[in-house]
């Protein structure tokens, strides 16, 4: 079976995207590219990257994109999410950051960003920027296993790929149980529920990306050498 390449946090960096595309081509069997959000950021103009994602060059692995936290901020601010207020605007420099974000993305891309999905379900895997609870939910290897299990349960998937934390990790639920006793007007019932064997995989962000082989369930964490990098503004 063909492997998946999972990428996130490109933040408008076309150069980084090209390096990752080149690196993926060196990997044997990688045939599907998933970009799990944060294609944009206020750090730089993102139009060139967005254009490339929408209209890949010959030889590019076709990207399958979903929206991430930064896209959500922009779409909320443009009114695509009803009366919500962009989270970033609560920051002391939020107005400036949002102005920079609006400047970084041309209008021609907004409707495309708004058309992107919250996540993909592929085989028995969920591919999401944050989690099934929220696009900004930063799942980490230190997140309570109870919360991780809840996020898996909400999607009813065996593997949940997440990008929001920027970390690369694989946390497997390997065992455990819980007793549940329910008393209602008809009587009392007790049963034991076992922990299902499921995983949460942090795919990394920016130069860090992940390969996944659905046939063998093998995860490989990779990173490309970055030729240039701009400092970010503190919004991860």
């Amino acid at each position, binding site marked *: 079976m063909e492997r998946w390449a999972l990428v996130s946090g490109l933040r408008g960096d076309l150069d980084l995207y090209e390096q990752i595309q080149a690196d993926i081509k060196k990997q044997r069997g990688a045939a599907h590219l998933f970009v799990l959000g944060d294609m944009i950021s206020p750090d730089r103009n993102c139009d060139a990257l967005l254009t490339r994602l929408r209209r890949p060059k010959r030889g590019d692995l076709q990207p399958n994109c979903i929206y991430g936290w930064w896209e959500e901020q922009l779409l909320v601010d443009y009114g695509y999410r009803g009366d919500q207020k962009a989270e970033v605007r609560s920051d002391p420099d939020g107005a400036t950051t949002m102005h920079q974000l609006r400047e970084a993305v041309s209008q021609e891309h907004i409707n495309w960003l708004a058309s992107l999905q919250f996540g993909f379900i592929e085989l028995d895997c969920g591919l999401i920027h944050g989690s099934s609870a929220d696009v900004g939910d930063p799942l980490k290897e230190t997140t309570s296993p109870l919360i991780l299990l809840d996020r898996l349960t909400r999607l009813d998937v065996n593997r949940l790929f997440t990008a929001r934390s920027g970390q690369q990790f694989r946390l497997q639920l390997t065992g455990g149980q819980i007793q549940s006793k329910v008393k209602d*007007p008809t009587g009392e019932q007790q049963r034991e529920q076992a922990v299902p064997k499921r995983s949460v995989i942090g795919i990394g962000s920016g130069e860090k990306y992940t390969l996944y082989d659905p046939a063998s369930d093998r995860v490989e964490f990779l990173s490309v050498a970055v030729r240039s990098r701009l400092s970010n503004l503190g919004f991860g």
Partner: protein
Amino acid sequence: MAHAVISCLHANLAAFEAVLDDIDQQGITTITCLGDLVGYGPQPNEVVELVQQRAIPTCQGCWDEDIIDGLNACECSYPSQLAERRGHQAHHWTADRLTDNNKAFLATLPITLRRDKLLFVHGSPNSQHEYLLPDMNAFAALERVETAGAETLFCGHTHQPYVRELSGGSIRVSVQQHGNGPATEQEMTLPMRRIVNAGSVGEPRHGTTKATYVVHDDNTGNVSIREVDYDVAKTCRAIVEAGLPDVFAWRLSHGFEYAERAEDASHVCER
């Protein structure tokens, strides 16, 4: 000290008065209400005013919220278009009749109430629209209580009273970090937590026509589910006379509900 927890009054005055009588007869003076004062039933103003008169601390339910904010939920809890139409009819009927003062009161209701390690909500700590059914995944149920920082979670919304104890839990994990080094094994012991669903005063769905609520003893931790007879026919007549859908009276007289139960109870409404 024993305290009573009531929920889902649904504008059913006869049921509410009967439950208050039952509580008073036990000498219980502390009552907490988990919302849904209105909707479906024929006496929304009377019920809201009685809650205010008795100064009962109350959370905002999904119906109370919708009356204030308008019908902007995703309607995920309606399994059919007919059910949705009836729900909308009841919403508009209630919104038309509820006084401005009573609407203002509903608007002031908090989403949660907390007393020490006891948390009171309408649906779940996540949403007034989420159903915590008794057969919900046990780990997910525990997550709702634990993430909210409670030891006992009181909820309503399902109209089915129950006490669920979640205990003896553990989760073992294996963590592989970047660098592809050896995985580390960890085990988390889960705390014992309880979910207490108060059922429904005004529209029971647990198999009988009796109004239900719960009594919790702070000292012993004991919870008893109370079932109270009331004049069901009186409320049914009032429903029909008010011009509300007859099916509301029919299902109240049978003590169950075919129509408006959520098809996918695990679904959380996203506005």
